[in-house]
């Protein structure tokens, strides 16, 4: 593999890791507050659809982003009402949300655009444009560092940079603020938080809504930045890979970044090279696709550093028994 191919591979990894990272951080907020969310997939999908539709009809990608985030937040709210207010099963609610998104996006897009579950191709103004960072053109000629800066670091859409900035922000919020302490506490021992006079319900709703916002950005990125329009099932299991990354990262922000970059790299490798030979053995492309899931099972099994979820995760909080 030559240097140019390597840069291309890493560049592609960053693009593919971005939606995973956003969804993974979304899940991190929710699960750290004690609300399991297997509905990340559905929220990404519904946002991808609404972003693309609104971006197409208005010609403004920012309005598209707003619509996508709003739709994802509606679904997040539904999850919150089901699992916090009515103390329903969080996993079942997540399953329902995934199906609701898979069905609604196609039903509504058929009714709006009659294109068999797609939105029309987005024009330039309906998409997030790639940003060229300062001096990227001038420095392109510098050996090694030039291409790295010009092709790898520069030239992504604003959502990519936003996603990477949310990682330190999340770390700071979670470990350096009062809000973060309370958020983590509510996922470990909600009764203690309640005793301290803080509303468990409110904390959890906040977390679930933050999760909605981040999934919304992930969906908008898929349909208005990574591709130019919505196609049915375009989330393609990314919500679940993000969930896998979250477990892989043991619910911590910096590790989440690493896990998502790793899974992005696997995805990019699988799509860039159809045939991979490792130590003389040809690795089937399906194995590469399944690798994130296999790695997650191995991590969950606890053979390589056990992943322990937040203690109160999945359990509705009942104030008095």
């Amino acid at each position, binding site marked *: 593999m030559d240097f140019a191919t390597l840069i291309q591979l890493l560049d592609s990894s960053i693009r593919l890791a971005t939606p995973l990272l956003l969804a993974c951080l979304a899940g991190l907020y929710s699960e750290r507050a004690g609300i399991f969310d*297997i509905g990340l997939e559905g929220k990404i999908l519904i946002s991808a659809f609404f972003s693309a539709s609104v971006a197409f009809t208005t010609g403004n990608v920012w309005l598209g982003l707003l619509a996508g985030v709003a739709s994802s937040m509606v679904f997040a709210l*539904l999850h919150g*009402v*089901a*699992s916090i207010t*009515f*103390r*329903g*099963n*969080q*996993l*079942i*609610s997540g*399953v*329902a*949300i*995934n*199906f*609701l998104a*898979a*069905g*609604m*996006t*196609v*039903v*509504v897009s*058929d*009714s709006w655009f009659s294109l068999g*579950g797609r939105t029309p191709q987005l024009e330039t103004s309906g998409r997030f444009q790639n940003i060229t960072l300062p001096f990227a053109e001038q420095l392109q000629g510098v050996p090694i560092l030039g291409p790295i800066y010009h092709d790898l670091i520069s030239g992504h859409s604003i959502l990519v940079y936003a996603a990477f900035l949310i990682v330190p922000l999340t770390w700071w919020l979670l470990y350096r603020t009062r809000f973060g302490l309370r958020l983590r506490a509510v996922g470990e021992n909600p009764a203690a938080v309640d005793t301290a006079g803080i509303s468990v319900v409110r904390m959890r709703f906040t977390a679930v809504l933050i999760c909605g916002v981040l999934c919304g950005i992930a969906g908008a990125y898929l349909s208005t930045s990574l591709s130019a329009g919505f196609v*049915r099932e375009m989330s393609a*299991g990314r919500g*679940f890979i993000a*969930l*896998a990354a979250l*477990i892989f990262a043991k619910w911590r922000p910096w590790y989440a970044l690493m896990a998502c970059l790793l899974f992005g790299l696997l995805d990019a490798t699988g799509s860039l090279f159809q045939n991979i030979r490792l130590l003389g053995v040809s690795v*089937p492309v*399906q*194995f590469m*696709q*399944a690798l994130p*899931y*296999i790695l*997650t*099972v191995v991590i*969950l*099994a*606890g053979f390589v550093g056990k992943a322990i*979820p937040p203690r109160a995760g999945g359990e509705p909080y009942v104030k008095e028994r």
Partner: protein
Amino acid sequence: MDKMPRWADVALIPFINLLLALVVSGLVVLYIGESPLEAMAIMVRGSVGSAYGWGYTLYYATNFIFTGLAVAVAFHARMFNIGGEGQAALGGLGVAVVCLSIPWPHWSLALIGAIVGAAAFGAAWAAIPAYLQAKRGSHIVITTIMFNFIASALLVYLLVNVFRVPGSMAPETARFAEATHLPNAYDVAPWLGFSRSTPLNVSFVVAILACVGVWLLIWKTRLGYEIRAYGHSQSAAVYAGINPVRIIMISMLISGGLSGMMAINGVMGEAERLVIDPVQGAGFVGIAVALMGRSHPIGVFLAALLFGMLYQGGAELEFEMPAVSREMLLVIQALVILFTGALDNMVRTPVERLFLAMRKGS
């Protein structure tokens, strides 16, 4: 203390939940600009208004009975087996291996072989998540989701690289031998008006037998009692000398086996070859079916019938009302799961209050 009569719990609440799901679905249809009542009429007519419709409705119901029972058995041990999709896909692989590798003399023997193959492969695919849950405490929901994706990748790999017919481009196995052809409804009862190509086949009988078997297992055997006890209270069950590892393993193996058996209907009875996605979401429908059926075989049977009607009726609906796409089914399915599963307390609490008030009043 019982807050309300049993009939309210097993019939009234699921009925209200279903009604809510249908009303919301109706609103979606209304939004698209079609009449929900007309859509409903088309769906009912399309699914149970003709022998043709029944052939498909019961064919789909057969799939959903298997996957519904699978989820239900796991529910009794308070396990959420979300991996029906992968287990059924592996069951399909088991059916294909059995049908292609042995020269069966008669379909009845082939059916028994296929049941064993499908159940064994499905159970094997559930065994690893079950073991990890029982021994290592890895959350079964997450591991079974991961195993769905691994199963799908595995199946694609095997169909493309191992089972594909030489010279053919299609990623599917060779057609099974003529002797393994399961009699369909036309072969058994042509006087009922089924067409020659109806997909309904003897697997439906196997599905009904599976319902009876699960009922006997859960309510009439010692093992079933242990499974239910473990599901009610894990600590009490352990105190009573029930081995949790054994219960988790056995209930998940049965669950996976039942999911796998779904493949005899689709793979052996209908397609007569293994194709790339043999399950078509039936594994997930099983979740809705088990929730609606309150994890009881009779409830599962009725709920599976209802979903069979929805699937066949939905296909007809797409035909007669092109504005409403087939994915409307997913919306209805999602709403059923949402209202019967996640928002159950929203209906249950007021109904309980109502019964309590009535009791005080009388």
